[in-house]
């Protein structure tokens, strides 16, 4: 029970902190001081206290976008186990719901973008749905590999593979899959090299450009759900790349938080040392993610035959 409460508490409070850490890392690389680590919280609170400007062109879809996104991301967070603790909600086949909840969020985010009738937001929406066509199959290859390794159809068991159960033969597919999943994570959470959250040119953006017209509390919700998505996908990745656990059960919470910080720093480093790819090259990056995950699956299947 306590574990579930901590799970919900972490899910609700921790995500914006990751954005702060990423930005701090980037600032450190650039030799700047950078915004405070808690800046994302300040931003969200500030936005929540503002009024809204809504475009005359829009309909209810425009407001439904952020609301549906937050609801789906919260629900997905409930399905995903953290560290060695079980998820609050779990059933056989929850992994598919987990993946499709993000699809639902994408449907309404992109529809809300098109609702404004702005060419730039249409551009962002088109890119978002296009790139998802490549990242979604990669995600499913990952899920297949995890299901095969663990022999289970619940996210709890799939992600809780004890480290001792791995043979060397399983390590290779898992390494490939985690590389693929890391690229998917970068793409889905609008990070460099796929997307640049700080750019000032609408033409080159994906996620940021879709929400140009959202303001005030609606934009606050969008920022919050985006950080939560980063948190959730990051936690999935952590399960694969670091299945370490401590003997003392409660110590796993701080361990998880430290690992999450580590992941945020890695993302920050990637963002600092790489430039954003040209838009037309992004499909190639995503196809490479798909190939990594696909080869991981094939290796695994070959091993079992």
């Amino acid at each position, binding site marked *: 029970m306590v574990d579930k409460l901590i799970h919900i508490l972490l899910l609700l409070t921790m995500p914006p902190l990751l954005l702060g850490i990423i930005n701090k890392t980037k600032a450190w690389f650039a030799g700047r001081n950078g915004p405070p680590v808690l800046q994302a919280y300040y931003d969200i609170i500030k936005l929540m206290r503002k009024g809204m400007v809504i475009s005359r062109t829009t309909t209810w879809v425009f407001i439904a976008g952020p609301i549906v996104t937050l609801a789906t991301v919260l629900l997905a967070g409930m399905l995903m186990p953290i560290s060695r603790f079980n998820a609050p909600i779990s059933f056989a086949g929850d992994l598919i719901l987990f993946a499709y909840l993000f699809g639902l969020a994408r449907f309404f985010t992109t529809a809300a973008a098109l609702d404004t009738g702005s060419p730039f937001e249409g551009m962002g929406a088109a890119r978002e749905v296009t790139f998802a066509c490549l990242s979604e199959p990669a995600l499913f290859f990952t899920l297949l590999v995890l299901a095969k390794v663990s022999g289970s*159809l619940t996210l709890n068991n799939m992600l809780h593979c004890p480290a001792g159960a791995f043979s060397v033969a399983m390590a290779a597919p898992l390494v490939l899959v985690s590389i693929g999943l890391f690229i998917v994570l970068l793409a889905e959470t609008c990070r460099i090299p796929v997307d640049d959250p700080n750019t000032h040119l609408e033409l080159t953006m994906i996620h940021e450009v879709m929400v140009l017209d959202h303001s005030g509390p609606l934009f606050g919700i969008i920022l919050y759900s985006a950080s939560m998505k980063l948190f959730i996908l990051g936690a999935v990745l952590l399960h694969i790349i670091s299945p370490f656990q401590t003997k003392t059960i409660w110590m796993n919470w701080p361990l998880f938080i430290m690992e999450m910080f580590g992941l945020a720093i890695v993302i920050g480093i990637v963002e600092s040392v790489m430039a954003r790819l040209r838009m037309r090259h992004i499909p190639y990056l995503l196809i490479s993610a798909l190939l990594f995950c696909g080869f991981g699956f094939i290796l695994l299947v070959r091993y079992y035959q």
Partner: protein
Amino acid sequence: MILTAIAVLGFSGLPVCLFSSRSLAGQRIATLLMFLGGVIGLCGIAVSLNDVLPVALCVSWFLPWGQFAITIDAISVMFLMPVFVVPMLGSIYGLKYWKQSEHPENGRRLVFFYGLLAGSMALVVVAHDAVLFLIAWEIMALAAYFAATAEDDNPEVCRAGWVYLIATHVGTLCLIAMFALWRHATSSFALNPVHTIPAEIAGTIFVLSLIGFGFKAGIMPLHIWLPGAHANAPSHVSAVMSGVMLKMGVYGIVRITALLDVSAVWWGCAVLILGAVTGIAGIAFAISQNDIKRILAYSSIENIGIIMIGLGLALLGRALNQPIWIILGLGGSLLHIWNHSLFKSLLFFNAGAVIHASRTRDIDQMGGLAKLMPRTMILFVIGAVAICALPPLNGFAGEWLIYSGLFHTLGIGGGTGFPVAGIAAVALAMIGAMAVACFVKMLGTVFLGTARCKSAEHPHCPHDPSAGMMWPMAVLAFGCVCIGFFPMIAGKMLDDAVRVWAGLPEQTTSITTVAPLGWITKMSIAFILLAGIIAFALKRLVKTRVVSEAGTWDCGYTQPSSRVQYTGSSFGQTLVSLFGFILWPKIHWPRVRGFFPKTANFKNIIPDTVLDRLIMPLFNVAGRYLPSLRVLQQGQTHFYVLYILIIVIVLLICGTIGVK
């Protein structure tokens, strides 16, 4: 009772012939009969649920072959459901959409063949004899032709009708060959399960049925007739064709595989691969189209692909003796058949309303209809979310079963499994993501934003259609929501059908125990509650704030017009070029020369790869080189009889030599 329903449906169009071409009375009576037929049929199904299926009836008739044999078993019942529901709602919709008084020249013909189409489809599903089946099949094919080509003064409609007629008859030809082989192997036309049939004959029958029924269902290289016919038919006919008639092809494959008790691994693999190819190529074509009804037609092909993936999984499960794969695969695929008939009919009705309002089928001319047709738009959103298989609507429930089954092929819960089949899950994921792209494009270009061209602005003030068109859509949307939230209501019927198909014993685990459908209900309700709470909190929060309205942020342009919006073509452009190897887009780039370039045109056409790039050129070549054979065709009957005599003599000689 079901038979009465079939008769009432089939002949519902007769009274209309008695009335004058402008009178509404005939159409009203026909609709009433359709409604009665549908209700009687549904009551019949409800009654039959308590009976012990199958119910059989057999009457010998005057034809030398076959007999009037009818059997209603659990599989028939699964397919009868959409046959009774969709045409019934469609005829109510048609009362306002295709008013007799506005279409005096073809209204009566449409009503008559519409009823005949519904009745013959029901007969196809219950026929227990190959000859009766073929007769019903042919009536269905022709009725669909006459209903779809109602506007036959339009050359485009005529062309689509011809392509359909040829395609469907090539398919029927395969079916005749198949049933002849069936007669040869089982020495009867009755469609009884066979256990002793040589593997190679069974394989040939299977392949022939896959081709023959594949033409009707629209499996990928055989789909040629589908986009044109669906796009050019009146919307309620397209709804019935796409929502129900395509399923008759699937029914044929399901029925034949149920009857052939033998099955090899390659059957399952073939159907899985066909399904994946059909799905991905279908949705890729859908994204590339700009005609609102062609998009929906291609998306039907995609959904047939999903259904085939489920069926392939079930075939694999039967070959490898894995009941769970059968239950999840066939159960998911049958549930998806229901779902597709609900949301696709809804979307076609919706498209009809949109076309009615905007007087064009080209989505790039539309835009901003959400403000003018708010209720139509809400129903469209429901249909679109459902067809993208997103939770919490019904599409998700069906695909979730198929996904679970595909994940089971990895060998979860013991056994080595057949992990290669898992790749179909990846294909399904890709189909899902592309469906989201396709329907967001449709929603965005048709309903959202602002009107793109003057004619869409206010030609005659587009508005929500009248209640007569609204209610059928609302009923279908309600069905989508119901199955989405409570998929277990279909559980018992699915279980029965799966048992009949696979010959599993009565006490096999049911679908509700293999897949925890109850969780879908819980999660759907949780999602709605969560979204409701957030919306409520937001409303409370902004109550005290200033909420002002302004124009859309125009990024500094001083005079943005509605023409700068993303169109459907630009939205799908990257995906079209990614899938260029299937789509082969014809792009005509303008050349910009000099400092003051002249007006230039950009053209981007995506023809159907199979029909326009392969078959039509082939026919053209045939047309160029084969006229020399016309000598044989003089138009004199006695010569034709002479040909028959010659061929019969030749066959006789061959036969005698063969015997000796």
